[in-house]
């Protein structure tokens, strides 16, 4: 992106209105906060009611007539039920496993490639870069991709959920842009001291790039966690389904959540079970997001801009 990103504002200082800037009128001010408030509410409102419903008792849900807006009786029965073995539990394990393995593999491959390409003028730099970039402009399509995965014998294996989406050229370009921006003097002095490229990467470059690697790891991790279509395409064995596919079958296709039919004592309410599956699909993202979020602008934009 050919824009120059200079953060002219220091993030933590309360900046003052400039002397020439007029105080906005009451109407303008109110309108501004009304709009922004509505935007924030539109994002958080649905999440609030879904989380609340997932921990509400049948009585509270019946009383509310659907989703719960005002907290009533709180119970974690729904979570106990779906996490005590069965389809959802297995799907969570599949998703966690695929996400962890996939993210680790993606990061190793991408960081290596980005560093390998971070010095224009090095051997085969341009041909390799072009090999990567072309795939951003032309993709083969669903059918040949499916035929390939099936002829490699990867159908119904977890590798089918990892390998085809293992690298994102976009992410590599962001990393590369960041690596290229590292002060040459530091790298040169490391080389003078006899550090190999491997050592420079692991001991100097990576420790300097924590923010951008965290953001890229988040991108990859979210990608694996959220992947839905790859599983529909490549996995036929329902026991191997990741959480997103299970979520779709329970919430969108109306399949009954296991345990929903038991009306025995302590059984969770059926809306609560559905909401609990939705919350499970959100939780990992909500857990990681706050730590990585503050690096978005710094890590990503600068990388992309220099890319």
């Amino acid at each position: 992106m050919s824009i120059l990103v200079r953060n002219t504002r220091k993030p933590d200082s309360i900046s003052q209105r400039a002397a020439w800037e007029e105080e906005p009128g009451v109407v303008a001010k109110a309108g501004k906060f009304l709009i922004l408030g509505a935007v924030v509410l539109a994002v958080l409102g649905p999440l609030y009611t879904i989380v609340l419903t997932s921990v509400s008792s049948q009585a509270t849900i019946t009383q509310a007539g659907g989703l719960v807006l005002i907290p009533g009786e709180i119970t974690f029965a729904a979570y106990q039920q779906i996490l005590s073995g069965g389809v959802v539990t297995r799907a969570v394990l599949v998703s966690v496993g695929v996400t962890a393995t996939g993210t680790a593999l993606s990061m190793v491959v991408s960081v290596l490639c980005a560093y390998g390409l971070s010095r224009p003028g090095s051997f085969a730099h341009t041909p390799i870069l072009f090999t990567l970039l072309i795939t951003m402009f032309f993709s083969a399509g669903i059918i040949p991709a499916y035929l390939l995965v099936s002829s490699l014998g990867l159908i119904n294996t977890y590798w089918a959920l990892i390998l085809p989406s293992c690298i994102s050229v976009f992410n590599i370009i962001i990393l590369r842009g960041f690596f290229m921006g590292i002060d040459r003097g530091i790298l040169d002095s490391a080389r003078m001291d006899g550090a190999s490229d491997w050592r420079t990467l692991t001991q100097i470059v990576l420790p300097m790039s924590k923010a951008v690697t965290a953001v890229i790891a988040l991108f990859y991790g979210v990608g694996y966690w959220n992947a839905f279509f790859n599983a529909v395409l490549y996995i036929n064995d329902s026991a191997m389904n990741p959480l997103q596919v299970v979520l779709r079958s329970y919430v969108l296709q109306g399949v009954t959540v296991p345990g929903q039919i038991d009306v025995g004592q302590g059984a969770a309410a059926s809306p609560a079970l559905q909401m609990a599956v939705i919350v499970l699909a959100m939780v990992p993202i909500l857990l990681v997001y706050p730590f990585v979020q503050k690096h978005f602008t710094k890590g990503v934009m600068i990388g992309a801009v220099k890319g």
Partner: protein
Amino acid sequence: MTIETEKPSPSAGGDKTAAHSSGSAREPQTGKKSQTGKRLQEQVSGRPRAGRLARFKRDRSLVFMALPAVLLLAVFAYLPMLGNVVAFQDYSPFIGFADSPWVGLDNFSRVFGDPDFWMAVKNTLVITAFQLVFFFPIPIALAILLNSLINPRLRAAIQAVVYLPHFFSWVLVVSVFQQIFGGAGLLNQSLRANGWEAVDVMTNPDTFLFLITSQAIWKDAGWGIIVFLAALSAIDPAQYEAAAVDGAGPWKRMWHVTLPGLRSVIVLLLILRLGDSLSVGFEQLILQRDAVGAEAAEVLDTFVYYTGVQNGDWSYAAAAGLIKGVISLALILAANKVAHIFGESGVYSK
């Protein structure tokens, strides 16, 4: 994003011939002119230019580092490109690529004569156009609004909230909408509780365009502001001050300073979107196609998926997919050309 690729410098050619003639890994002796070129190169890249073999020896660890990614792309991106030969065959999985009969362009003429294909094209373009008008401007407006907040803490907090839905999966987003607007959802529950008619939002083909656009806005409009915020922070505050001193009010400043400052980003994103016209929320649509029917929800990608993977008409679907891929490529190149004409740098520079 402009991807700068190293232009082959004049000295690189000289090096090549020199390396061949001397046949050794030693520093090639070239003329005085390319010596200065070399020194320049040295300053730019920080690595002295050397003969090809010497450069390989020096850079081989860099090449090895890039290798795994290249191999993965070779298998999972380039091999499938070759796999598009099935579009010219009457492919059957039981016979395989090698023995399936060749049929020339038959599949393509079938595709072009298929009303279902044209319906998918129409839906795709309608969705793209609709979202260009109703989705595209929202992040720009939000970014300007957010940028006008004085308190940086408040601004950071709102940013953190609006970026969040971008990281949810489509299954999750559609599920959330289902819970709020579905037949048994929050909205209809309260409508019925107050004695009103329930409204059909999630399965109504007539309003489907609004539905998927609001879903896209909920998920991605917040994330879209990140690049505009970056561009806004790059505008020199002195420009605002100068405009204010000259008597420009807030609206005039927005029109004459803010929007021109965003111009190149807007053009760039517009180009990217236009180049991507034929791809519209594949996962989003495949999740809802059953609920509203193909009439409203069939787009090119879902058409390829259903005819190929679901109905086993591999060659036919591959032909449709290949048409889409080639046209998309042409659109990106054309859009980029247009950007160059307008003096913007576009997606890549030459």
